[in-house]
């Protein structure tokens, strides 16, 4: 086998290196994200040899910090690292909207509790844990003026907000490791009667993992203070979920299990100064 006839790298790195900036005459600032030191150093060697400026990041948070600080021309990362970046991005989005502090962690926790109670398998539970963090990843593409608006959204603004499900799906789309999470990202705002978004799926066509996240997402949104409304008590939030079952939006059996779980085991109650009252809904807990 001739070493010179083969590509420089085999495996996933080969695809990455092929996207690197051209070697001659156009040195670029390149960020390499890889949790494997040797991989990172290998890419660094090649890129430095070709005259590029190289920064290395070991995980998603470090990568995001370097993107913000150094503004690289190109980011090279293996797909596993891309998931780490997405998770960090999800937490960054949460930090951007201070009213949703801790929302992702609570969702992941509650969704896994509910999934366990429903007897879901380990693959689905893993999807729920990651889906709790990543379900709203598409909000990275929603303008601040809409995402952070302290009052109700206009129909046009709500239409923009709905786009977060499609943007998120696209962001996860290339990652094989997130194939089980994509249905959550895309479909957590669907309703069983077909009036949800983005695809208007009906009944069993709505993936169960997405239904689970949908339920815990609404519960968390209702029991947490938002700029456009005060929080309601967990008991009232459960009543609201029941009402949504009667409207045909949610699966009664699933909601019953959640309500029991909430009452018997006590899911984290995060409403702060919770008070009874009607929820002013903005879509389904966007």
């Amino acid at each position, binding site marked *: *086998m001739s*070493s*010179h006839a*083969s590509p*420089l*790298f*085999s*495996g*996933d*790195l080969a695809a990455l290196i092929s996207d690197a900036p051209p070697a001659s005459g156009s040195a670029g600032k390149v960020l390499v994200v890889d949790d*494997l030191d*040797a*991989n990172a150093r*290998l890419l660094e*060697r*090649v890129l430095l040899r070709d005259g590029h400026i190289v920064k290395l990041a070991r995980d998603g948070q470090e990568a995001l910090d370097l993107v913000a600080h150094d503004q690289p021309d190109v980011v090279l990362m293996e797909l*596993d690292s891309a998931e780490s970046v997405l998770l960090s991005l999800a937490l960054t989005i949460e930090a951007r909207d201070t009213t949703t502090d801790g929302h992702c962690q609570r969702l992941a926790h509650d969704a896994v509790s509910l999934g366990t109670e429903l007897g879901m398998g380990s693959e689905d539970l893993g999807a729920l844990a990651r889906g709790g963090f990543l379900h709203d990843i598409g909000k990275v593409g929603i303008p601040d003026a809409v995402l952070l608006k302290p009052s109700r959204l206009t129909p046009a603004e709500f239409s923009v907000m709905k786009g977060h499900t499609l943007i998120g799906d696209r962001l996860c789309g290339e990652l094989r490791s997130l194939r089980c999470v994509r249905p959550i990202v895309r479909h957590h705002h669907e309703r069983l009667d077909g009036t949800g978004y983005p695809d208007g799926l009906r009944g069993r066509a709505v993936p169960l993992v997405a239904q689970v996240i949908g339920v815990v997402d609404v519960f968390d949104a209702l029991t947490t203070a938002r700029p456009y409304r005060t929080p309601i008590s967990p008991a009232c939030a459960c009543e609201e979920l029941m009402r949504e079952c009667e409207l045909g939006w949610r699966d009664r059996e699933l909601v019953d299990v959640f309500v029991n779980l909430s009452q018997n085991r006590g899911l984290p109650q995060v409403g702060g100064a919770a008070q009874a009252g009607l929820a002013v809904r903005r879509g389904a807990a966007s």
Partner: protein
Amino acid sequence: MTKLSSGDWKHELKNQLGIVLGFSELLLQEMQHDDPRRPDVEEIHTAAGRAMELVKERSFNAEEGR
């Protein structure tokens, strides 16, 4: 040591082999053609390349259910 699933195990192995391949490729590119160590490095590169092919072949067969 962490217990790895079959898929994770293959992924890890491909990662490590990729490192051997990549660095040996770099060495070959940077070495003089008459460097006496060149045949040794070529052996490393060839063996790692063959091992990578085997892992990929095995992964493909597993995905095909064979």
